[in-house]
């Protein structure tokens, strides 16, 4: 059976749990990382030399990097559905997954760490504000792109929505000022209808 290593409040673990929840994939999960530690222990480093979460072990096949795990699980359990098989459609979904890694994820990192995981006296407000501004700019681009689209690649939900979805959820939970982004808000409302998102993403408080 599929085993997921990673704590439930990790944004990257949440991507994996979301697809597991939506597709209803039998699995077990073990809390690793953050307050649970274990990522530096030999058995874990042997699976994942980067000592981060999540890592999966699918009947002996070990994989890390949450976006790659999401694509792998989609290919294995829902090919043609969540993971488009046509080459150009697949590239369309993948570019939004990569956009999260290269643009939105790095942009939002410091506002989250600063406000949620750093005590007030240690916060660098300039760094936090830079990160908030960059995130707002990236999400404004996304909002424009969503004009006339229900999901990031068009009319149906795909793996392309998952990485940015967990970040959109986080953005609306942060105690910050936000520009009005009507299309992004509608997208979030659509995600909230999905079982995996409800339980494993929206249902988990920011910590």
């Amino acid at each position: 059976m599929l085993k997921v290593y990673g704590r439930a409040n990790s944004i990257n673990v949440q991507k994996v749990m979301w697809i597991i929840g939506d597709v209803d994939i039998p699995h077990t999960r073990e809390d690793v990382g953050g307050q649970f530690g274990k990522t530096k222990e030999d058995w874990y480093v042997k699976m994942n030399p980067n000592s981060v979460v999540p890592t999966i072990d699918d009947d002996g096949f070990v994989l890390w990097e949450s976006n790659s795990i999401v694509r792998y699980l989609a290919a294995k359990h829902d090919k043609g559905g969540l993971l488009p098989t046509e080459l150009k459609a697949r590239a369309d979904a993948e570019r939004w997954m990569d956009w999260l890694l290269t643009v939105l994820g790095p942009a939002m990192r410091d506002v989250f760490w600063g406000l949620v995981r750093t005590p007030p006296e240690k916060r660098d407000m300039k760094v936090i504000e830079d990160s908030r501004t960059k995130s707002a700019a990236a999400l404004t681009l996304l909002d424009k792109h969503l004009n006339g689209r229900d999901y990031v690649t068009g009319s149906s939900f795909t793996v392309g929505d998952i990485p940015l979805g967990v970040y959109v959820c986080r953005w609306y939970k942060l105690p910050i000022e936000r520009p009005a982004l009507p299309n992004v808000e509608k997208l979030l409302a659509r995600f909230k209808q999905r079982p995996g998102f409800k339980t494993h993403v929206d249902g988990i408080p920011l910590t």
Partner: protein
Amino acid sequence: MAKLRILGRANSFNVRKVLWVCDELGIDYTREDWGRGFRPTSDAEFMRINPIGLVPAVIDDGQVLRESNTIVRYLASKHKADHLYPTDLLQRASVEQWMDWANYETSISLRGAFLGGMLNEPPWNNPWFVEQGRRQIAKEVGQLDGHLAAAGPYVTGEAFTIADIPIGLVVNRWFCLNFEKPVYPAVAAYYERLSTRPAYMRHVRNGLP
């Protein structure tokens, strides 16, 4: 069929990944200079093609592609380069895992270590970013070193794959960084191994960071 059209300056980290894979696969293309030092990507003409405003953008058969790793995977699939991008699900996932790693983990560190520490570009030149970036990239390249020593000679094992493309860019930049860096023998050997590929020498180890 129209030639592949690449929009982006040839000295861009992410454009070079695309040039490298085109060279490996013998894909014919035209390239236009856009981005830092050339026509700005905020121009209406570019934004119509790629509203995200970043290079590279690639136009293939009327389809606009962006995000360099996605473009690399797309071109390898389209040209049926199964030796570079295996079709087996498990092997493919391992290739993608390393591409994602290069995309996120190292790109975050390189903002501080390279954009801030070397190019003095705000806001990354804030000492907080520079210091954090240098510490982090040294740790990440160290992890790569351990991995290559144990499971090399290439990132996913015996053979060169497209996973080595983004990592090859990271490694080249690593050797160009201007601070006192730890010595990583497996990474150094890997750098020399990649350097036996003419396409790597043309587009990556060509004097640019």
